[in-house]
């Protein structure tokens, strides 16, 4: 199943730095795994725990209601070891935090974190959730008579803004605090031809609560979220929501991940034992059935963006909708045979197109803190900026990319448009870059690269700002954070240079930065 990563990012509380942020997310494109976690501020080293959770899931997504305690054990040990190291370090350095943290270690205090993990397989998405981070599944409902889009929305596990409290369920870093069983369920996905995407929106609590409040106040929110495609837009959105006059977002760490699933060929949905949900995308209609009522809180179809009140207040609306959708499905089966040839042709063209988009978008998403995977099936798309306070009147969720150019191996890269001072010579492999400016005889481009910490003048760069790094001369700059990928080596830096640092938390010895240079036309 092709999953498009539209955006992933996290941000910290107002006036704090990203290193204070206790939210984490992780992505394993190859395995189609996506996870977010929100470390509880008042717990003990929640940041380490939240990061371990998302990384662990993306490597080992096989968590369920039977094995979750075992699944946690490995990282519980890792967390404890890392915490012990930190406390010993604080003692050695006579840090004022030592007394507090030694007490917490002595009394076996846990870190706690909420968690959502998604794994997309051929015909379903496997969902694991604990706590008040929420998963929203939104489907566009394009109205022929209007350029406005609305969305029908399902939310998991919480259903409205009043569900948020001070004590969400969590995963804990000590076995003794394994108090909350995660909700693990599958959502079967079956697709027929349809023009709309199905969006999976993962959000930590402050944003989730804000989303619910917007839905309850009939304020458009999903269009806004789906149009976020850059860290800047995300930061602007959060700042605007925190300072809005009407509906305010709490000043908390915020993580957002937006995924889109497009149409695909029909497959049989497999049902799991505990919760049998079947979400079918076809001909513009979703069919969602929940064949058990044992766990009602995990499924509650609700309607966002004006047409209907939330489903919990209007249970008949869901039934009516399902009946209507079933009639539509029958009609679609009739015409399916006619369009099948066209559909196959469309899929081939779309595949070619999306592969290209994937390559481009990988170079365009600054906040994606994951290992780039050249073989990934996941694509990323970018849409136009938005302003939260504006009610958008158009559905201009345009997929648009910066111009891309392939630089050939051997290309010389210059520091500025004078094209005299060489920055890289020669380029050691061909690379695709984003063109950001052009002159008569020069082209300015950018690309995201990596350098390990041994190549940096850490703490020695006097003129560097907080978001800059300085790299030593003759350093090899990499397009992938592993020198064994020789085909990903970009080139050797001629002189000591400064670059804008980008967030990259997966491997701490690696620094990610934005490289900008010039080439001759």
């Amino acid at each position: 199943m092709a999953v498009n990563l539209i955006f992933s990012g996290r941000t910290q509380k107002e006036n704090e730095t990203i290193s204070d942020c206790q939210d984490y997310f992780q992505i394993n494109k190859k395995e189609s795994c996506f996870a977010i976690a929100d470390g509880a501020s008042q717990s003990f080293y929640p940041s380490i725990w939240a990061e371990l959770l998302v990384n662990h899931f993306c490597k080992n997504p096989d968590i369920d209601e039977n094995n979750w305690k075992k699944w946690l054990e490995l990282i519980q040990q890792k967390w404890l070891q890392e915490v012990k190291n930190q406390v010993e370090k604080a003692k050695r350095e006579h840090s004022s935090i030592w007394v507090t943290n030694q007490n917490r270690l002595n009394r076996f205090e846990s870190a706690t974190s909420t968690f959502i993990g998604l794994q997309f397989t051929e015909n379903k998405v496997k969902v694991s959730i604990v706590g008040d981070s929420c998963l929203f599944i939104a489907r566009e409902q394009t109205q022929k008579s209007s350029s406005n889009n609305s969305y029908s929305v399902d939310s998991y596990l919480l259903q409205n803004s009043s569900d948020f409290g001070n004590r969400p369920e969590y995963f804990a870093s000590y076995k003794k605090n394994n108090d909350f069983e995660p909700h693990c369920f599958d959502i079967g996905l079956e697709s027929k031809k349809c023009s709309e995407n199905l969006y999976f929106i993962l959000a930590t609590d402050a944003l989730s609560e804000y989303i619910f409040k917007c839905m309850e106040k009939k304020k458009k929110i999903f269009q806004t979220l789906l149009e976020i495609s850059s860290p800047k837009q995300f930061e602007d959105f959060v700042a605007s929501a925190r300072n809005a006059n009407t509906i305010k977002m709490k000043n908390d760490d915020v993580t957002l991940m937006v995924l889109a699933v497009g149409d695909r060929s029909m497959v049989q949905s497999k049902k799991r034992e505990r919760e049998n949900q079947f979400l079918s995308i076809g001909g513009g209609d979703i069919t969602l059935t929940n064949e058990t009522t044992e766990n009602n809180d995990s499924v509650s179809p609700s309607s966002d963006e004006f047409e209907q009140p939330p489903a919990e207040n209007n249970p008949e609306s869901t039934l009516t909708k399902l009946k209507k959708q079933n009639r539509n499905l029958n009609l679609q089966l009739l015409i399916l045979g006619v369009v099948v040839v066209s559909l196959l042709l469309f899929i081939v063209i779309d595949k070619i197109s999306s592969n290209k988009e994937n390559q481009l978008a990988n170079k365009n998403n600054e906040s994606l803190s994951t290992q780039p995977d050249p073989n990934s099936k996941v694509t990323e798309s970018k849409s136009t900026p938005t302003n939260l306070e504006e009610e958008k009147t158009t559905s201009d969720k345009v997929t648009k990319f910066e111009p891309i150019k392939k630089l050939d191996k051997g290309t010389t890269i210059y520091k500025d448009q004078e094209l005299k001072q060489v920055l890289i010579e020669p380029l050691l492999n061909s690379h695709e870059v984003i063109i950001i400016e052009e002159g008569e005889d020069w082209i300015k481009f950018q690309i995201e690269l990596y350098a390990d910490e041994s190549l940096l003048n850490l703490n020695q760069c006097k003129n560097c700002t907080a978001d800059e790094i300085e790299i030593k001369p003759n350093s090899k700059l990499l397009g992938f954070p592993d020198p064994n990928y020789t085909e990903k080596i970009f080139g050797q830096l001629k002189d000591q240079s400064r670059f804008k640092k980008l967030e990259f938390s997966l491997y701490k010895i690696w620094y990610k930065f934005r490289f900008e240079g010039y080439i001759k036309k």
Partner: protein
Amino acid sequence: MYQELLSSAKPGFIIIMIDQSSSMSDSYANSTKAEFAALAVNKVIEEIILSCSSGSVIKDRCYVAVVGYGTGVNIIFLEKVSDLAKNTNTETRKKKVSDGAGGLVEVNEMIRVFVKPTASGGTPMAEGFQQVYKGVEKFVSNNPNSFPPIVINITDGEPNSFDTATTEAKKLAQLKTTDGNVIILNAHISTASAGKIELPSSNSGFSGNKFANFLFDISSVLPDILAESAKNAGFNVQPGARGFVFNADAETLIKLLNFGSQGSLR
């Protein structure tokens, strides 16, 4: 109202007032009221530091002040949390904690010493509120959009003047940020086994008790965030409950200090 989270951007202010009058030398919880109150306050400050710690750093999510009143009014300190944590004067005590396997294990617990037991003079509570007013006024001026300051008053006896203390406390309660008025909680500590009052929503059960009525009158109705925190601490909280306990034993005092100081530090 009362929605803001305490953060470095919008720090809070927690003020603890301690009665240091001579009657605080009376016995209480296997020590004296003064000794127990000092220990309880030191512990709650430790908890505040803990709540403001994030991994290996301490965030200045709030300011903390302790004001004593007895022979006079004494501002024991007013610091940012990160500065409080620099206090190297610690005592080590033994504490039993769950070992995670159904048993208890004794561990060392270090407590920073901020407040020492004192018991002399009268009960100039009104002057105490006056002193707190000055600090709070400055705080709300500098932090107009923060969660409002929380004042927790620990006392064992009647103030020198009911009227003046009432006036000063109500004046203090009028100060506000955009997120709400100053919150005043009162804890009357006593060894009396009868007549215990916890977070009452009306004074109908103790209308003949002038002292209890006074403290009820100057105590704030708990905003939702503190009411929830009080519930989690084990109190029976009714709508309209006020932040006030009377004839509180040691456990009740600790519970009030904890929910009063921690509720906004969620």
